[in-house]
């Protein structure tokens, strides 16, 4: 060991030094599927590389750009696939037709002073993965999926988002043919901010519609998942 700063930076972070059953199970399923000819190792590698590089950064960047440039906002709403390319996302990747579960019909829903948008997939967990990354755990739960379409105000309140009655809530149900993301309005207190500063406050939750961007807030709400409870039978 030396006391040089660069050596210090190279210190390896802690790792799980144990082979877990889950790690072994994932390998076993994959190997058996490949051996049975269900898919090839090459196909699996391509989809895994795709899964490794997706995240919410391009979507946040797209919204920040739209806030700064009205022409880009028009493009984003009229031709969302073209606007996605400007933030580095090609919806046709990784197969030339997108992934099997990410169809290439994509629409951006712009909030207005009187309409708030929120996305859900009532059927399963369709999500705009190429531009927003993997969905959070709670998005996949029946609790969120079934209740958001019925009681959106109540579910949004559980995320800490209380909307006044004069704002209507538009719940957009994704499906295997259409993917959506929300373009929230630029919040107060961000005058003079550049694109990087604005992109930082456009969190994943804001792009789903369960939060509103706010100067100084750059993290998502941590939400416990729980089983579905009907309001009429709760308590």
């Amino acid at each position, binding site marked *: 060991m030396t006391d040089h700063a660069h050596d210090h930076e190279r210190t390896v972070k802690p790792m799980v030094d*144990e082979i877990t059953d*889950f790690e072994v199970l994932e390998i076993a399923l994959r190997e058996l599927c490949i051996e049975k000819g*269900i898919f090839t190792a090459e196909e699996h590698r391509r989809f*895994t590389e795709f899964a490794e590089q997706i995240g919410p950064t391009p979507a946040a960047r797209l919204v920040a750009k739209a806030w700064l440039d009205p022409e880009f906002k028009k493009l984003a709403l009229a031709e969302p696939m073209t606007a996605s390319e400007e933030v580095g996302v090609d919806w046709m990747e990784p197969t030339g037709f997108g992934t*099997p579960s990410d169809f290439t019909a994509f629409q951006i829903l712009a909030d207005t002073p009187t309409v708030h948008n929120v996305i859900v997939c009532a059927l399963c967990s369709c999500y705009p993965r190429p531009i927003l990354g993997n969905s959070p755990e709670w998005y996949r739960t029946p609790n969120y999926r079934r209740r958001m379409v019925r009681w959106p105000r109540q579910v949004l309140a559980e995320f800490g988002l209380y909307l006044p009655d004069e704002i209507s809530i538009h719940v957009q149900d994704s499906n295997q043919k259409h993917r959506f993301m929300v373009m929230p309005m630029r919040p107060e207190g961000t005058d003079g901010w550049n694109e990087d500063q604005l992109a930082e406050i456009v969190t994943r939750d804001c792009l789903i519609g369960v939060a509103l961007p706010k100067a100084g807030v750059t993290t998502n709400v941590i939400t416990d998942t729980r089983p579905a409870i009907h309001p009429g039978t709760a308590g």
Partner: protein
Amino acid sequence: MSERIEALQEIVERNQVWPVMAAKYGVENPVPPWKTSLDGLCDALDRAACNENIPSFKERRDEEDVLSATVYSNLPYPENQLVSLAHSLVARGIIDEKELKQRLESIRERLEA
């Protein structure tokens, strides 16, 4: 579909779930390292879903929802996603339970060699 599968039950009981492992070794990653490979596996399966008996995207997710809420309700995400997928593939006869058990043993031997 809800019948217990012994090989998977043993995995559940050993409980090497990521929150436990991460805490034990002081690791900060929110999800286990095999998660992206599992995502690749699900996408590859969805693409193959036209073949006989391979669950479609919707069937796979529906079965995952049911199994995660019942047989595997004690597992966190994404362990419940992985084990539910394994359960679906065994229950549908795509993977034989004995074959899976043997493969789990041989992979562990390989990784520990």
